[in-house]
């Protein structure tokens, strides 16, 4: 089998698997939330309500493709695609198992950071082009949130880079053969996790959409498949961040050999996805300025200290 065909297979495989997971997550989240909230959730369509996803898809495709007459038409159409494209591109560097990775770049980590921050444009452009005051407030919040959490999201990962001497995600996973990085880099993990929640705009950091305040924030005016893109983009984002947490801190595909590596990878990823959902079920939403001060006054200094200490120890021991 030629290399080109092999890579094509992987690319198509990753695309299909990720989009399927994103769609299934809608069902998964609704069922899990229902479980924690003393109710049933979607359980009528198909076994366990699994076909609910199909029903939703059919509905969303057949909805009127409405564009607000006061909106900036082209930007309005373009905005939802950015988040889906950016997050899907982010999956290019995720090492699912030895040999199963679309591109093992030597700057994989930086590439991931770049792609995940591109998603902010989606919120910013979507909110501004809607020409709606609620959307505007939502996109302002979104932009400020991403900018401030981007900074230490990167810094929190530098400890991992120092320990593994590489920006390549495959090398980072291989460097965790003896010990998962969550142990030496626990602070880095916590900060990355918080930043990841903020990055994906998930509750409790869902300020850009804040239903009880801004109705739906930046996507108030969206409907049909354009809204669906935001929706899928959010679930892809959760999957990507969870996959990255597994890769950076929990040894990626590594695990006892009774299960194949790719299964280990997905088990870990799903554990974090579930954690994301549990967070949404349990926590209230802080105010915008409280979120900002948490970021700049606590998490940023903490991640810097973490970086300095890691570097110092590495210097002292490894030389």
């Amino acid at each position, binding site marked *: 089998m030629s290399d080109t065909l092999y890579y094509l297979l992987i690319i198509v495989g990753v695309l299909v698997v990720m989009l399927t997971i994103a769609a299934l997550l809608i069902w998964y989240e609704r069922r899990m939330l229902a479980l924690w909230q003393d109710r049933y959730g979607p359980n009528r369509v198909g076994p366990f309500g699994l076909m609910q996803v199909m029903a939703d898809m059919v509905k969303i495709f057949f909805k009127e493709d409405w564009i607000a007459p006061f909106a900036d038409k082209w930007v309005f159409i373009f905005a939802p695609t950015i988040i889906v494209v950016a997050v899907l591109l982010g999956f290019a560097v995720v090492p699912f198992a030895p040999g199963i990775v679309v591109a093992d770049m030597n700057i994989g980590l930086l590439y991931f950071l770049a792609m995940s921050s591109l998603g902010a444009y989606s919120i910013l452009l979507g909110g501004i082009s809607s020409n709606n005051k609620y959307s505007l407030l939502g996109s302002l919040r979104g932009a400020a949130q991403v900018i401030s959490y981007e900074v230490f999201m990167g810094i929190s990962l530098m400890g991992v880079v120092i320990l593994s001497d590489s920006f390549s995600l495959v090398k980072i996973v291989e460097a965790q053969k003896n010990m998962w990085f969550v142990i030496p880099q626990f602070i880095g993990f916590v900060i990355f996790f918080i930043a990841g929640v903020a990055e994906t705009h998930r509750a409790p950091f869902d300020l850009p959409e804040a239903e009880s*305040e801004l109705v739906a924030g930046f996507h108030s005016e969206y409907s049909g498949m354009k809204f669906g893109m935001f929706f899928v983009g959010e679930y892809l984002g959760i999957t990507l961040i969870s996959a990255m947490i597994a890769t950076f801190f929990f040894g990626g595909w590594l695990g006892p050999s009774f299960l194949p590596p790719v299964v280990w990878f997905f088990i870990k990823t799903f554990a974090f996805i579930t954690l994301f959902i549990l967070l949404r079920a349990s926590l209230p939403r802080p*105010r915008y300025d*409280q979120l900002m001060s948490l970021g700049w006054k606590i998490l940023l200094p903490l991640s810097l200290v973490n970086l300095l200490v890691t570097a110092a120890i590495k210097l002292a021991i490894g030389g």
Partner: protein
Amino acid sequence: MTYDHSVIDSLKKKFGESAFILQKTRDGMPTVYVPQDKIRDILKYLKQEIPKPYKMLYDLTAIDERSRSNRQNLPDADFSVVYHLLSFERNSDIRVKVALKGEYPEVDSIAKVWANADWYEREVYDMFGIKFRGHPNLRRILMPPTWEGHPLRKEHPARATEMGPFRLPDDKQDREQEALQFKPEEWGLKRAHEDADFMFLNLGPQHPGTHGVLRIILQLDGEEIVDAVPDIGFHHRGAEKMAERQSWHTYIPYTDRIDYLGGVMNNFAYVQAVEELAGIRVPDRAKVIRIMLSEFFRIASHLVWYGTFAQDVGQMSPVFYMFNDRERIFEIIGAICGDRMHPNWFRIGGVAQDLPKGWEKLVKDFIDFFPKQLKTYDKLVMKNRIIKARTVGIGCYTTEEAIEWGVTGPGLRATGFEWDFRKKRPYSGYDQFEFDIPIGQNGDCYDRAVVRVEEMRQSLRIIEQCVNIMPEGPYKSDHPITTPPRKERTMKDIETLINHFVNVSWGPVIPAGEAFFGIEATKGNNGYYLVSDGGTTSYRTRVRTPSFPHIQMVPYISRGHTIADLLAILATIDYVLADVDR
């Protein structure tokens, strides 16, 4: 309830004997007619100078007197404006009236004396067409600005069929929509300050955070609220006008729907006012049944508040748990009354039926079950640090401010002022129960929440005592006006049969007179001021609801906060739009 009548002597001493005409009312509240040119001075005196002053403008309303026939020695009037003041130090009220002549009379505004007079005067203007001289912004409040006529005037039709068919041609629709357009200048708001324009955000009437059709227009500088203008009336259904068409008895179900989370709590205030008018004494069993059901509804209403409060500050799950608990309460209420949210259960002179067999077990099960839930919710919501960060120090007001704005109920107690009608003016036998009045300290959003949570525990205590002391005996009074009269005797003696026939077919005839009855409802003081002209319907029914003044205060306490804070403030005020608009 006995009122302090010494205030009349103080008034006479200050303004002269001749200025006042006393009116005797069925509720025994001191009621005086004063000359209209002195009204502002007299009210100022009552608020500021008299020893133990009347600090709160409890209610302000009007009566269209033109077709009233029972006017025993009262001054000649086409309209009268009624000011109901409350003194906390005296624990007494006074009713001051002004007799007005003319088709569209005028009277001095007291908006400068009491902050909450603003909306009340607008309401009277909207409903009666009485103008208030010197009012800062006298415009309609409940009816749309395009409305013709003033609904509570006697000549205004009460039914759609009296008004001709409704049509909405394009040009009329355009006019109506144009009228809803917000123009900042009309409210004295600037469109811009030195270096930037303000943003005017239309929050509502359809907004997930306003819990109903409330519209608030926000003047924003970034996300900071510079000023806010609440626009109410979207939920106005003319409850007071309906009372003038319904018989005293058939109006009871309408009251259920005023504070629609309060259920029989609304009946409670209404039937007690009617009983006051008719002089009915309610048997003990009925009293305790009434208290038990009202306290159940207090818990049910507070549970809705609790869940939506958490939801409004972004916590998703609690509302589901609390609605589940509320469902348990509804099962008990359903078992006793046959209906859940609006059981329409109290009757003039008692309650509709006796308690069903096995009610004790249902209630006791709930008493065992509920405290555990409250403990869980404390951990989940009240002790959550994000909730605290969102609510502590937000939307504060002091006791003085609360009184100035007419705030009652948990909102008043959260400022540290212990005032509860159930303790201060025990009605229906509340004095035989042991319970505490929870109070807060800072009057902020968090304290309001704490007070409500604690109130649920206290209500549970009352319910427990109800189970223990539930007296035997009739559930309805023997009084002939009791409606419908006790069925078991109708076929045995002619007197009861006649009463039954008349009261059911016409409705009871209530002797002429006036009475007010206020209770501690779920959201604050709910009161009914009834005027009977000696007929089968009420001549004037005034519903004093707590939510109306509470919403009026929103701009005052939300200035300088952000949109997110506004939602926390709205959540902790705990209003119901039907209670605001009636």
